[in-house]
């Protein structure tokens, strides 16, 4: 009885699935899905090698400082960095005095101590990076109806985040003729910019890094080409997303080595205890 009931229930589900499968297969044959421009022209991120890659990776502090400079002078005009405080910049090799000076260079929201009115004041190391727009509506109004996303976690919020940021920054180009030929309706709308590394190929951000030497370089650092600047700011955003990466790598090494040692001991005691006991 249980067996018959079970087979009937089984038939109910399997027939329903076969029906779904049949209808789906029929639709596939009669109306094969149309190709899309996103599907055919979207590119995977380019390769990017950073000092922080791999199990022994360490941040290149010089590069992070260069990346921070680019964020400060270029990106911060539109993008917030809300999970990062100025005090965190000490990890980039800045002294306490330098951190204070950097913080003071930013105006953060404050309260007038005499009137209680909202105003702004120079930042302190304990402050977080201020947001460039008062609210989402202001951000949309200034950016062709798109909200510039916060960058703190950007390299963890995209697949292959570091290479993604680097590819996006260096990937702006004219729309390929082949794309327009195949998908005439997919022309990049006015105000958007074609970039094959962006998921839907057209993004509101104009190319932010346009000219070599856009930021001033300090002695001992590589020439600030667009490619180099894109690499530096990607490295910086890897740090903002995962500031504890170095400590994680170092702790991990110690933990794994200890565990291997303990496991070998555990295995030996296992062999010892089971010696002479066939199993």
């Amino acid at each position: 009885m249980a067996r018959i009931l079970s087979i009937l229930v089984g038939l109910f589900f399997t027939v329903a699935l076969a029906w779904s499968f049949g209808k789906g297969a029929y639709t596939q044959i009669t109306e094969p899905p149309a190709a899309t421009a996103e599907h055919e022209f979207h590119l995977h991120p380019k390769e990017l090698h950073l000092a922080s890659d791999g199990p022994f990776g360490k941040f290149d502090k010089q590069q992070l400082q260069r990346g921070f400079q680019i964020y400060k002078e270029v990106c911060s005009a539109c993008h917030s960095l809300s999970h990062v405080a100025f005090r965190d910049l000490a990890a980039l090799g800045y002294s306490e005095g330098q951190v204070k000076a950097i913080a003071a260079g930013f105006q953060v929201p404050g309260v007038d101590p005499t009137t209680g009115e909202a105003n702004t004041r120079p930042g302190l190391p304990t402050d977080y990076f201020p947001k460039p727009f008062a609210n989402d509506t202001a951000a949309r109004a200034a950016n062709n109806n798109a909200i510039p996303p916060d960058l703190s976690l950007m390299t963890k919020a995209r697949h292959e985040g570091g290479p993604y940021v680097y590819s996006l920054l260096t990937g702006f180009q004219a729309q390929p003729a082949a794309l327009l030929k195949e998908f005439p309706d997919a022309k990049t709308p006015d105000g958007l910019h074609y970039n094959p590394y962006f998921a839907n190929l057209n993004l509101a951000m104009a190319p932010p890094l346009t000219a070599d030497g856009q930021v001033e370089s300090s002695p001992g650092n590589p020439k600030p080409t667009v490619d180099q600047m894109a690499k530096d700011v990607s490295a910086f955003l890897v740090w903002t997303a995962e500031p504890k990466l170095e400590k994680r790598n170092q702790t991990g090494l110690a933990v794994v080595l200890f565990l291997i040692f303990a496991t070998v001991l555990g295995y030996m005691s296992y062999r010892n205890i089971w010696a002479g006991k066939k199993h």
Partner: protein
Amino acid sequence: MSFPWAKHYTPAHPFMKWMDDRLPIPRLVYNAVGGGYEVPRNLNYFWNFGFLAGLCLVLQIVTGIVMAMHYAANTAVAFDTIEMTVRDVNWGWLMRYAHANGASAFFVVIYIHIFRGFYYGSYKAPREMVWLLGVVIFLLMMATAFMGYVLPWGQMSFWGAKVITGLFGAIPFVGEPLQQWLLGGFAPDNAALNRFFSLHYLLPFVILGVVILHIWALHIPGSSNPTGVEVKSSSDTVPFYPFYVAKDGWAIGVFAILFAIAVFYFPNALGHPDNYIPANPMSTPAHIVPEWYFWPFYAILRAFTQDFFFIPAKLMGVLAMFGAILVWFFLPWLDKSPVRSGGYRPLYRKFFFFGLIPAMLVLFYCGGAAAAEPYVMISQLAALYYFAHFLIIIPVVSAIEKPLPLPFSITESVLGKDDEAVLDVSAAPASAV
């Protein structure tokens, strides 16, 4: 449980005797995971996963309690409090990554544990209750993990919650009011986040309670073993301590190495990048996918694309998704074969290795892929096999199969002959104790 030859607890220290007379916890431990629990000597490494699952539960509770100390269940700040924990709390990053990957580790272990049960027929009499409680634990784990994933209030948290709670809307007549009642609103919001947090803290302790019942029920007949032949004499078993403590001990080491590599070097590999974007009800992610451990069941949910007679496709999907797990409850009565172990069941074994395992892997893959062709069609075939396997193939196979001859005893299966019964087992561990 106790085989007649199991050793009895004899307190050595006066304090332990004093304790044993008043609250016999030492005796309980001794009989549960000590020298008083006699275990088949022939267990293979698949039998380590129960112990590992218990370890995972403890790990999740410990890291989870620490996470809860820094977390605030409020949609305005939930995402930020997690980031604060990772960035500013001492070792907060370790707690967060250990907890997030701990959930994955728990499911890896539990899936192996469950499939060991499938292959070796661990669900059969007299261990039905062990199995039923195990399925209850699995369901509780899924609920707990689902609600835990909502707590960081990232994009996948929000949209995953929306999709999964939306399933209740498929229930005829009461679906929509039920969904709103469960969420405390029309969509996941602060009310939902608060209750999810409350339940996410509660359920692990419920799981712990059911785990105790699971182990209790296990200790009545004692552990199963790879031959499926029941214990017959003292030469078939060894005491849990020291034999299986040592074996579990080094298995824990291997598990811990793999877990540490994941936590320290690939902490985000199993997560979805979108969950590092704060929840935004106005912006739907391109692909909404749950965590990897739900993928097979998510694939089954999505496999039903057509209405079936008067049943809407969505309701079919929901029925099938829950049915795919509920069917495990009936397994002890669907599989009537008197032989437990797949090792002695040539036909069952074939269906297990060439049917169930591939179907499950395909469902895993398709559940994580985009809801587009060819994945939907592939998952439909795999889901079809899945239901056929449990509801049609297993009952039929168990009726027609001719099992291989079983060994007379566990000892015979190990030694090729059963003449060790004269040798006392307790002689062996003397050097080790």
